């Protein structure tokens, strides 16, 4: 389709604006603390990579970074595994209470965290999942599974039911049809869903912080360490901030074509 003549310019101006705060954070990460707080300057006067050296030199920093990567990946895989059959059921069948069930799933994204976090802590402690990667991954399923079901269901409704029927006539059982034929057809849906699961799990802090202490501590929680008696270590904080963007940027690079293909086929 045609694009308006000035659309290109406006779009890239928007992207530039979007990048400003991120670039500013990057700028902070490569200057010494005295320069950050000292005076305002657009271009860093002295460039230093000390903060990055500190980050990768200290176990507590990079291990919490790895913790976040482990539990977000685990969460994306587990969310997809449970959401795929459920989304198929919602898109292909009517069953008792389906509408209510769907809305109930969504409501789990709507609980205000402050008070709900206390019992969270107790449950995960009592079943031995406290401070484990698996524990955080399961807790994050609370808000990722409903979204995954919703997105996948939209894609699946876009695939004609005739395909299921043809496969059944050809003698495919439901599981075999699902794995051999259906899943490859909705590859892009799986890519998009995995991205959204990764994203929401990666940025979540309150739950992850509540049910971890050391072994599975997320990177975002480690960042509060930069506040000490001597004030905030802005440079190190900015460095950690810059590094938290990297894994997500890699993930989106891999799924970019799936997003570009679009997932609004059918109903959603």
């Amino acid at each position, binding site marked *: *389709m045609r694009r308006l003549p000035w659309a*290109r310019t406006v779009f890239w101006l928007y992207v530039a604006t*979007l990048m400003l705060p991120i670039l500013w954070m990057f700028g902070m990460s490569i200057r010494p603390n005295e320069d950050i707080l000292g005076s305002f300057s*657009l271009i860093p006067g002295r460039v230093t990579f000390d903060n990055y050296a500190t980050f990768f030199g200290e176990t507590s920093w990079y291990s919490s970074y790895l913790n976040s990567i482990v539990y977000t990946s685990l969460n994306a895989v587990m969310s997809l595994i449970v959401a795929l059959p459920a989304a198929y059921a*919602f898109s292909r069948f009517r069953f*008792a209470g389906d509408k209510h069930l769907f809305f109930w799933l969504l409501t789990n994204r709507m609980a205000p*965290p402050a008070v709900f976090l206390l019992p969270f802590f107790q449950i995960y402690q009592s079943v031995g999942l406290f401070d484990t990667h698996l524990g955080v991954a399961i807790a994050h399923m609370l808000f990722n599974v409903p979204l995954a079901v919703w997105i996948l269901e939209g894609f699946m409704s876009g695939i004609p039911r005739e395909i299921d029927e043809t496969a059944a006539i050809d003698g495919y059982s439901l599981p075999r049809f699902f794995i051999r034929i259906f899943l490859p057809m909705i590859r892009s849906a799986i890519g998009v869903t995995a991205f959204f699961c990764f994203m929401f799990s990666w*940025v979540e802090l309150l739950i992850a912080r509540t049910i971890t202490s050391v072994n599975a501590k997320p990177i975002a929680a480690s960042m509060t360490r930069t506040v000490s008696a001597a004030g905030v270590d802005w440079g190190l904080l900015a460095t950690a901030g810059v590094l938290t963007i990297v894994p997500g940027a890699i993930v989106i690079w891999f799924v970019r074509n799936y997003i570009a293909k679009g997932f609004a086929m059918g109903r959603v």
Partner: protein
Amino acid sequence: MTERTTVADSPAGVAEPATAPAEQAKDTRVDARPKNNRAWWLVLPVVVSVAFTAVIPLMTVVNYSVQDVFSPSERIFVGLEWFRDVARDPEVRGAFVRTLLFSAQVLLIEIPLGVAIAVAMPRRGVSVSVALVLVALPLLIPWNVVGTIWQIFARGDIGLGGWAINNVLGVNFNYTLDSTDAWLTVLAMDVWHWTPLVALLAYAGLRSIPQPYFQAAQIDGASGWATFRHIQLPRLRGVLTIAILLRFMDSFMIYTEPFVVTGGGPGNATSFLSILLSKIAVGQFDLGPAGAFSLLYFLFVQVLCYVFFTVLTRSGR
């Protein structure tokens, strides 16, 4: 869930007048899905995995909300007293109005802006990949980091944003002292942070519109606006439903970002419901009122989402 439309959007749609192919195609469809209660087996893993984390906390919070807890062994049943207290509390009411206003502003800005960005986004070549990655970046930053970025960025002395407003525009801007500035900072932060989500969803939606629709529109000599209004917008209803619901519930429960940037201040200018709630729950450890507060909060979000969901999935059919 409502009745669905199958992909088909048959090539026949192409021949139809460009004004309303989508609507016409939908009217004739009925829900042809077979009724099969065995589908529950497919849904069961989802129910179990979500219920594990959802049900017990909810019950615990209900338990808090009807009791006055003095110590683990000493508690009395107080019925609905906490609910009445919370509903009458002027501080809660103030925060409620503030949060509602904030969500309304967020939706009014982010949804149209996100759609506009999606329409203006490149469609071909390498620039698509670059654009997608760059637009998605703000979404991938942990929420407390977003707060930290803006805390610095909006500062008048050492942050680019605050400095530019003060020195280039010549407006006196200080988000730590002025309540309007604080509000605008939080709003700007949310728009910066979340418009990309709307844009990505809308972009994916736009890309799934079959090309023939646009060719038909072109042949009919439809203007750019008419093409947008009658072809693109109706086809975006599904993704925009997701976008509006997600943005409503997340903005209505916004906590981390304003907590880091303003801490609810100055005064209580940016003290949203979630910030007030955590002050009562964690700061004062008043579990009874906090439990009742949470449940009312939860219920309100649900009811409003249900209304949005019903209206958005029914309209245009």
